[in-house]
């Protein structure tokens, strides 16, 4: 490694990552939004979104990512995802039941804007899974760095 690139991997990998990471991210969003009409869903899409961040971290090193995505932001998003999912379930009480499909416009089968509360729940799950999985990855990295030192 030369002095210029001592954080992260080589220039080739950085360039390729820079080109592809956006596509990976968008593909994750695609999986989430089409969760109710095609295979996939909130969890799978959330994992792909988290992987796009993991990819960035592997290529550019952890300091770069810590600057942009601090741990507090991740824990914030994780809680928000969980609370959003719970609120969608709780709003079902407007129809009389917990988890009731309160969305009035049910839409056409096999189109994106359909299936009531399911796409919303998928989005909530994706937020939770993406931030949670990336937080787990960050914690594993963190433990490896500080294991030798006294805190």
């Amino acid at each position, binding site marked *: 490694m030369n002095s210029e690139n001592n954080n992260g991997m080589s220039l080739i990998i950085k360039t390729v990552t820079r080109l592809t990471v956006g596509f990976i991210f968008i593909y994750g969003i695609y999986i989430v939004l089409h969760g109710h009409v095609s295979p996939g869903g909130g969890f799978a899409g959330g994992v792909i979104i988290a992987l796009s961040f993991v990819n960035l971290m592997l290529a550019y090193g952890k300091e770069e990512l810590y600057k942009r995505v601090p741990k*507090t932001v991740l*824990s*914030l998003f*994780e*809680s*928000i995802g*969980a*609370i959003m999912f*719970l609120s969608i*379930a*709780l709003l*079902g*009480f407007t*129809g*009389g*039941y*917990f*988890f*009731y*499909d309160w969305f009035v416009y049910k839409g056409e089968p096999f189109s994106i804007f359909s299936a009531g509360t399911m796409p919303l729940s998928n989005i909530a799950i994706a937020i939770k899974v993406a931030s949670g999985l990336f937080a787990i990855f960050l914690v594993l990295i963190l433990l490896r760095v500080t294991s030798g030192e006294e805190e």
Partner: protein
Amino acid sequence: MRWELNLLCVFIVLPLAGAFLNSLVARRFRKFSTLWSNLIIFILFLLSLVTLKFVNQYSVLVYKVGGWSPPFGITLVLDGLSAFMLLAINLISFTITLFSINYMEKFTAKGKFYTLFLLMVAGMNGVVLTGDIFNLFVFLEIASIASYALVAFGTEKDELEAAFKYIVMSTVASMFVLLGIGLLYSYASTLNMADLSSYLAQTEPALVVKFAAVLFLFGFGLKAAIVPFHAWLPDAHPSAPAPISAALSGLVIKALGVYVIVRMFFNVFGVTSEILGVFSVLGIVSMMVGVLLALGQWDFKRLLAYHSISQVGYIMLGLGLGTPLGILGGLFHLFNHSVFKPLLFLNSGSIEYITGTRKLNEMGGLREKLPVTANTSFIASMSIAGIPPFNGFWSKLIIIIACVEAGRIGYGFWAVLGSILTLASFMKVQKYAFFGKLNEKYTQIKEAPFLMQVSMLFLALICVFGGILILPGVREYFITPAVDVVVRGIAYKDVVIGAIK
């Protein structure tokens, strides 16, 4: 009837919402998160008292989640047994959160503690309320995963090791349970407990059902720490912070283990004399092995953990007799154990908070310095050893009478012997910890903070007056509905399907 039904979800929604809001705001508003968590558990405790009234009024309530009808949708079922467990869980959780206000100050992440604790309570409430076996598995995992993190909460070497052992063994158990659920689903094409039970009753008993039953006995037996599957408990329970040890010993092994065994075997599969025989033998083995291993312990919390194994043995013995009296004794002992064992763990936590030690031979003469801790622990020790008039005496007496009544004098003998050995073991605790000469190190110590004293006194009061619960006129509200559910056996399906209409 609508609002009563909607109340059932509150037991799951409120702690979940509390946990996630806690993780959102705990960093900034420390006081608020403590207050908020205690308030939620207190509300749940009050609501669980209200559910006893529902059971008295309607006998069974079935809630359709999302408005989907039962064989397809998930149901929440409140019957006598669920209400009994709900009250035990939320009552003890309330005293534990009260205790942890002061106790958890010595750990840095109190907000995280409350988040995990509320998740665990949500999981346990879900397990006892759900009427769907896969949903049960999900709640089982919520409660288990929260408890793994709580066992490792101190993040010292021993705690991490114990938590790792607990994770591995408990995950193996969960996988066995999942395999059993999968086999049952492929056989019966349904996950709803009542529906599954009626399908099993219509068909010839297939080998795969027996295999699934064995898998469940292994999986839930490990969660309940019955003896061949107990190895994780003596490490995991003492390593956790004291309030969590109290919750694990008092609630988790019962809600995730004993309760589910009762529900699956008595209400879904239906018990035969062989299954009952297995329960009784496992019960006696746990009872004796637990108490014999406990006798030699010098670590206060480890001794208590071994006694948990032994006391679960009593519960299994009572249930394994299969007679109404035996089941009454077993369930009553379940409730009593979930009162005095948390109390003992809170006592050990209080001593550890003040003196910083868990070793019995480093204590001594603490009675004069810590009157509240000493007296409540005396009451709890006498309860667990089965000395009248405390609550443990009555439930052990009922179990022993039920043994004699069922013609199992030998079982009764082991129960008496186990009780005597328990007494011996707690005599040792009292002698070394509270009587004798005060260690010179501890001349300056003061009694535990006020809220810790309040929660210990509250549990001690229940220990003293717990015997009232089986008097005629009182037991109809609390224990008899639970016993009826178990005694009715596979008639559970008719009751639940009848309530759906």
